[in-house]
C-alpha cells in the first residue's frame, strides 16, 4: 500500500464519521426533538452510566452470556460439523434436522426459553447457543467436505489414520474455514444477546436499552447502549480477524490481500 492510499484509508472514514455526526446533530436541532439525543447528549449519557457504575457491569454481563452461549455452541457445533463432514452417514442422519432448525429465528425461541429457564441467565445463554450452533455446525461440515483430496491422500500415504489423521491433517486443513464460520456465528450471537436481554433478564446492554426507554424515555442512554453494542461487535470481529492472520491459517484466506 502506498503512502497516499494509506493516508486516504485513514482520512476518508474519519471524514465520513465527522459528516455523520454533524448531520445527526443538525437533524436533532432542526427538528427540535426533545427526546432524541444529539451526539453530545449521548456522550453525557456515557458519563452518567460510567458514574453510576453501570457501563462496565452491563458490558461484562452481556459478554458473560455471549461467552457461555457461544462457547457451548463451539464445543458442540464444531465436533458435530466435523463428524457430519467426514462420515457420510452422520451427515445423512443429521442434516435434515439441522437444516430444519437452522432457519428458526432465535427470537422465536424466546417464549420457550422463558418457559424452560425462567428469567435467569440460562435463558439468554440458551438463545445465544441456538443462534450460534447451527451456522458453526454447517460451516464446519462444509469445511471438511471442501478439504483438498490431495492432503488426505498424502496423509494416507504416510499411513495416518484415526486421531492422528484428524489432528495432523483434517483439523488444520479445515481450521481456516471453521474460523470464518465462528466469526459469522459470533456476530449473530452478539445480535441475539441484545434481543434476549430485552426480554429475559435485568442486566446487560440489551436490558439497558429497553430499561432506559421504559424508565423515563432516556433516549440518550438508549443510543449510548446502541453505540456500545456496535463498538463491542466491531472489536469482537477484529479479534477473530486477528486470529485469521496466524501463519498456519493464512493460506486458507488466499484471496484476501492484507
Amino acid at each position, binding site marked *: 500500500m502506498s503512502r497516499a492510499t494509506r493516508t486516504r484509508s485513514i482520512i476518508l472514514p474519519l471524514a465520513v464519521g465527522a459528516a455523520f455526526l454533524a448531520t445527526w446533530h443538525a437533524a436533532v436541532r432542526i427538528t427540535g426533538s426533545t427526546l432524541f439525543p444529539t451526539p453530545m447528549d449521548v456522550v453525557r449519557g456515557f458519563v452518567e452510566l460510567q458514574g453510576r457504575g453501570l457501563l462496565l457491569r452491563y458490558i461484562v454481563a452481556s459478554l458473560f452470556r455471549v461467552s457461555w452461549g457461544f462457547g457451548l455452541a463451539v464445543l458442540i457445533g464444531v465436533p458435530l460439523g466435523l463428524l457430519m463432514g467426514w462420515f457420510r452417514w452422520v451427515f445423512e442422519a443429521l442434516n435434515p434436522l439441522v437444516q430444519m432448525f437452522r432457519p428458526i429465528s432465535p427470537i422465536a425461541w424466546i417464549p420457550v426459553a422463558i418457559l424452560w429457564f425462567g428469567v435467569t441467565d440460562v435463558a439468554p445463554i440458551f438463545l445465544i447457543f441456538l443462534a450460534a450452533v447451527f451456522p458453526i455446525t454447517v460451516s464446519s461440515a462444509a469445511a471438511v467436505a471442501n478439504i483438498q483430496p490431495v492432503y488426505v*491422500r498424502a496423509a494416507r500415504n504416510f499411513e495416518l489414520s484415526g486421531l492422528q489423521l484428524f489432528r495432523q491433517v483434517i483439523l488444520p486443513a479445515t481450521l481456516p474455514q471453521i474460523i470464518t464460520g465462528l466469526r459469522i456465528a459470533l456476530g449473530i450471537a452478539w445480535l441475539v444477546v441484545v434481543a434476549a436481554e430485552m426480554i429475559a433478564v435485568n442486566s446487560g446492554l440489551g436490558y439497558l436499552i429497553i430499561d432506559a426507554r421504559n424508565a423515563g424515555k432516556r433516549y440518550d442512554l438508549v443510543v449510548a447502549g446502541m453505540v456500545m453494542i456496535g463498538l463491542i461487535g466491531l472489536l469482537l470481529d477484529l479479534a477473530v480477524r486477528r486470529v485469521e492472520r496466524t501463519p*498456519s491459517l*493464512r493460506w486458507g484466506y488466499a484471496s484476501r490481500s492484507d
Partner: protein
Amino acid sequence: MSSGSRVNEPQNTSSTDRATVVVRDVCMTFAGKNRSRGVEVLRDVGLEVSRGEFICIVGPSGCGKSTLLNIIAGFLPATSGTVEVDGAPVRGPDSRHLFVFQENGVFPWLTVRDNVGFGMQKAAAAQRDATVKHYIEMVGLSGFESAFPHQLSGGMRQRVEIARALAANPSIIYMDEPFGALDFLTRLKMRSDLTRIWQQERKTILFVTHDIEEAVQLADRVAVMTPRPGVIREIVRVNLPRPRNLDSPEYLATRDRIFSIMGMSAALGH
C-alpha cells in the same frame, strides 16, 4: 559431450537386482453412467521395475497412466490383475512407497521444515533435524525453512514435496506428472535437479508424464502407453549417460522412436 564414461550408470540393474515392482495383467474399468457398460481404462498391463531403477510411463492424456500409478501405489484397487511391491501384494497406500502429487500435496499449514519432517515423526528429534536439513539443502531450499508453502513458487513447493518424500526414506517414489503444472524453464531445471538427486539417492522412481522429452531425459526405461484401453505398447531402454545431452543424436533418436511408437499407434487407432 560424448556419450561415455561421464557418469556411473547402472547398465544392467535387472540382471543383478530382483524386480521391486511387479505388475501383472492389470485391468481397470470404471463404472459407467449407465450400469450396463463401464469405461475400460487399462487392459492387461504388465510391468516389472528393478530396484533403483528410474522408469517413466509416457502416454497421451487419457491413456490411463495416472490410473496405473494410483493402482500401483495402492490408492485404487484394480478391477483385475495383481500388483506386488517388494514381494507383497499391494493392499493400500504404504509409507515405504511415497507419492508425489501433480497438484502438490505439501501441507499449507506447516512450514517447509515441518513439511519435510512430516514423514519422520517417529525418529529422534536430533536425527530428524539433521535429515530435514540435509534434504532441504539437496532440493535447494536452504533459507526457506520457516517459510509457508503459500509464500513459495510452484516449483519450490514441488521441491518441498520431493524433499518430504526423500526424508521419509522410502524404497520407492511414485511421481504423477510432478512438473506438469510448472512453467517450461522451471520444468527444465526441476528435471536436471531430479536427475542429480536420483543419482545421489538411488531410489526406485516410477514417473508418469505425457512429456516424451522429459521421459527420455530422466528414465532408464520408458514405458510407452497407448490409449483406450490403455496398454503398454513398448518399453524403450535409454542407454545414455547422465546428465543427458539434449542435443545428442542418441537422445534425439530415442525421443523420435517413442514419438513414432505413439504416432503409429494413433494411426492404427483410426
